[in-house]
């Protein structure tokens, strides 16, 4: 992501052209984050726009000593988590979910990536086959590098629960990758 200081200054002045340039520069990385946290592409795009609106609103508070990419990434993740928390039905669904073997069998059938490469999209599909709360914890702790304590506060769960979700997600992803890719790449996990 290449964002110059001049571009940020122009965005602070509410110049629409500068905002477009900034949006164009940030769109890819922001959407990549949102795609991991949201159910589908449309929702992810909507969260990207919400996050960018926050970026425009809070641009006055941005300090140059912090890398802009890190700052924008943080805002995007927070917006995605806010959206997740708003979606109560999703949580209720998880609470009532039966995590039986049958559930996993159906998930494995859905993720039919045997003939595909292990690219970003296929990995995202694998993560999405996890229960929603496990997805969020896995994304935050493993991919985005948040502490367990931080994630516990963000998702309103205990640290121990976070640890369990990470352990559980890893185990399930290993199984899924073994089944779907059936290559030596699973050794990495």
């Amino acid at each position, binding site marked *: 992501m290449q964002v110059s200081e001049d571009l940020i200054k122009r965005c602070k002045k509410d110049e629409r052209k500068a905002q477009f340039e900034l*949006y164009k520069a940030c*769109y*890819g990385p922001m959407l*990549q984050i949102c795609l991991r946290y949201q159910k589908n592409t449309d929702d992810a795009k909507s969260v990207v726009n919400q996050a960018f*609106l926050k970026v425009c*609103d809070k641009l006055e508070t941005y300090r140059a000593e912090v890398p802009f990419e890190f700052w924008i990434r943080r805002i995007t993740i927070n917006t995605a988590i806010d959206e997740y928390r708003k979606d109560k039905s999703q949580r209720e669904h998880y609470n009532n979910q039966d995590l039986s073997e049958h559930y996993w069998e159906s998930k494995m059938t859905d993720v039919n990536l045997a003939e595909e490469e*292990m690219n*970003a999209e296929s*990995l995202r599909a694998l993560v999405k086959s996890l229960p929603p709360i496990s997805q969020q914890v896995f994304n935050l702790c*493993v991919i985005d590098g948040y502490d367990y304590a931080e994630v516990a506060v963000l998702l309103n769960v205990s640290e121990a629960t976070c640890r369990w979700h990470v352990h559980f997600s890893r185990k399930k992803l290993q199984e899924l990758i073994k089944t779907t890719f059936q290559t030596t790449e699973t050794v990495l996990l």
Partner: protein
Amino acid sequence: MSAPNQDIKAVFDQAFAAEQIPFDMGAWNQMNALLNQRARRRAIWIWFSGLALFLALTSGYTLSMSTNMMYHPRTQAEPFQPALASTICAEDLNALSTSIIETRNSVSKTPTSKESATLADHKANSTYLPKPHSENNGSLADGSNYTPSKPALPIEKTEPKSNNTAAPNATATLDSSATTPVETHRSMDWIDLMSILTLDPYSNDTTALPANKPSSNKTPRLYNFYVRAGVSKSIFHNPIWSHPELGQEVGGGVQYFLKEHLLLSGELGFARVRMEDTTHITGIKTYGYTANQNSYLVNTSELYYLELPLMAHYRMNRLMIGGGFSGSYLLGLKNETTHQVSSDRTSVTQTNQGGFYQWDRYRSYQFSALLDAQYQLASGSFIGARLNSGLFNVLAIEQKKIGMSRVDIYLKINLK
């Protein structure tokens, strides 16, 4: 982070670094609309702040004006005399009033011994001794002219204290020409006495304001002009059309006092009504061998009406309740059009923001029933609420019927 987690992270990072996400122009169009909305919200915030400041200043000014102009029958009829108020106690006044009534009821023009005693007691107990009249010339002894504010007032005697059975419960009428010994004491304390005995219907009405009732000294003007400004919330019979933001309205008019409590008013106003009406129009056009699909997404968010409400109000002290009808004409509307042209190979999207023009989709004339309530804040300012219920379809097309109602909250200021 543990080593296995690091390994997983490396796999994901590698995969994500290799991923190329193409830029989506449609997402920017949505973002652009959100940024416009944000800019509009800011503008509305500034507008509301200005309006709130204006209302605060106007209310403050009118309140201060009304405090100075507060109607009080005693102070308007005669100058207030603190010495008089402090010296005459309630018992004295009761005794005096009883003696007046009894005197008027008695056949003899000379005071009885009991009446003389009452008057003597009154004179002895009260420190205030009014100067005697010169003989029935209508002027006070100190040279000032006395004009009775109530020339003929009925007094209903409820508790006769004397045993005089000549006219125990009769209603007596006092006239200025009567010459009784008691009337020789009539002076400014009489006016005070009369108001305390609640002969004046307005004497206890401390909440009464000048515009609220006619003044006895001056003939009230039968009409007055006013201006009105406020916010409105539109309610459509189909909730999809409802817009979260508030509309605005301004207007001015004249009200005519048909009777003491009945007013007729007519005004001319301008209303900005918020709504959400999205229409999707598609069509295919062929240029040579290429077929282009044109897709128009038209979102109408504002309607501008010129209104002519006619109403009648009934006034109850500070509260006015009324109803009427309003005719309105659609001056224009605000559209936001997204035009997308797509063929097999290309897709171009163009957004035209804020097009103001009239569209045949909407009915030009509207007619609505009004219910209105106003509360007087100060002498010339009112706060009001108005329900505007549309009687016709908003749309000009017959296939779809959309009724519109509006709730307005406004401030009305009478012009002097």
